[in-house]
């Protein structure tokens, strides 16, 4: 179980603007292997690995939130 502190650090309460744009340039460059992860499928509540999607098809993945 994740600690409350980790939860609050990641899910900031106040937007201040991201400084991660420069870091983005060196994380997972084109041509390298995409990192796999587990996530919950909203529609079914099942846990899935992203690699299950790229097993048979190309995958376009977009990141975001409601706000």
């Amino acid at each position, binding site marked *: 179980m994740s600690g409350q502190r980790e939860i609050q650090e990641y*899910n900031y309460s106040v937007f201040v603007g991201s400084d991660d744009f420069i*870091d983005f340039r060196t994380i997972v460059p084109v041509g390298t292997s995409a990192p796999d992860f587990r996530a919950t499928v909203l529609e079914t509540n099942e846990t899935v690995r*992203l690699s299950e999607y790229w097993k048979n098809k190309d*995958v376009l993945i977009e990141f975001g939130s409601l706000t």
Partner: protein
Amino acid sequence: MARAFAPKGISFVFLYTREAHPGENYPAHRSIEQKLAYAKAFKAEFKIERPILVDDLVGTAHKLYGSLPNMTYLISRGGRVLFRADWTDPPTIEYAIDYVLNSRARRRDGLRLAPFYAEFVGYRWSDQTKFQEGLARAGQQAVDDFARATERRSKQGPRPGRIELSE
């Protein structure tokens, strides 16, 4: 776009992250149930048809890919990154997918093609009205926080990693 490219072998998925602009109506996540509920609200609000994957509460998947609020990655069958962008812009995505599909078609036609590393500057549509509407949906706090952040940044000069081009 997801529907147009589905027959061409591209799966579109959405990874639900932390709230980029938390406000009174949609405050920062403190439980996975809350995150799932906001993801459902997002699906309804924007009529999202593609599968929505919800990350864990500490952003494990989000952090693996760079933690930015609106990133896009095109990953090949087999798991290699073919294209990525620090923003999501539909025409740019279409351009990238078409490029990949065309390259494969040329290869199939017998052309000898070798992969290489490439980058380019993207141009996205910046719709400030729509953006402000989005902040208002989150609540007045989100509107105010963004205004404060913008004012603070204007005093700090160019931000590392952000592309500023006027031409």
